[in-house]
């Protein structure tokens, strides 16, 4: 019982944080609502996961949660990898721009103009 109260409170707090404090797109907020809503539902009624698991051919509810978590984390990693690559591209552009703008040395030492 104490687990359910604690986790419901934590999940609800996280949900409100994402919905109200961070300003994201409507689609993402809908996803957050669904995701955390389902989480709270599963915490309050753990047997619900088993019912859904059986519907999709998985034996135990805990396994369903495990598979979904793995998928989610994989997606998250991929997402961060893409962002990392974009950031690296930006860094490259900045470093290149700086290098081209301020040569350490010019081919012709006499001033141009």
């Amino acid at each position, binding site marked *: 019982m104490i687990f359910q109260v604690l986790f419901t409170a934590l999940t609800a707090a996280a949900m409100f944080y994402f919905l109200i404090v961070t300003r994201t797109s409507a689609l993402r907020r809908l996803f957050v609502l669904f995701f955390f809503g389902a989480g709270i539902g599963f915490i309050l009624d753990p047997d619900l996961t088993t019912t859904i698991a059986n519907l999709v051919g998985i034996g135990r509810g805990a396994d369903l949660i495990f598979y979904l978590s793995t998928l989610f984390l994989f997606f998250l990693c991929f997402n961060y*990898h*893409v962002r990392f*690559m974009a950031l*690296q*591209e930006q*860094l*490259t552009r900045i*470093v*290149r721009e*700086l*290098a*081209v703008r301020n*040569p*350490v*040395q*010019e*081919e*012709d*030492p006499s001033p141009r103009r």
Partner: protein
Amino acid sequence: MSRADADTPRLSAEEANGTYVVITAFNEAKVIRDVVQRVLALDVHVVVVDDASTDGTAAQLRGLPSTVLRHAVNLGQGAATQTGVELALARGARYLITFDGDGQHDENDIPRLVHVLTREHRDVALASRFLGREALDMTRARRLLLKAAVRYMRLTTGLRVSDAHNGLRAFRAEVAPALRITQNRMAHASELLHRIKAAGLSYAEIPAVIRYTEYSRAKGQKGLGAIDIIYELLMARLLR
């Protein structure tokens, strides 16, 4: 050091004036001055890109008539090459050469490469370690690795090249946009071949000798670098 001989081709004044040699260097303070001086002897323009060396590589070039750029942080050889190419284009380059700062390439191959562009009218000229003249002191393991890399590149690009990962090559300024390097690190050599294929550019190979010295071997790619290159390319393809 130079191995120029009687039949080494020469650049005309016009060819030499349009030629920009982009030399990338990362911690090459011991050899970079000698490398740049040998290239300058051809009367071509030289752009050195110091990829954030920590040994004072750029300072070694003081007084030489070459442009020296410096990356604020180390980005890798592909990125350094692209930086040099962009500066050279801005300065009016017509023929671009990429050249390694560690002294493994022979500057006498530069006129041959430029002639492929000016006299054979190709877009790209590639130097190959496996055409006739043999690389000096190539280890057996490296030969096997490079041959395997060539087979892989032939398979994935359909280009009939004999050497896939030589850093010495030349291309015309007009095709530089099509050859823009986005792979910051070592996968840029393979990327170049993919781009030649995608843009339908004409190319030819010339035989070239690479000097594998204790110095270059210690600095160069480890054999397992091939795995890194394949990984970089796969990720780039997945995420394109």
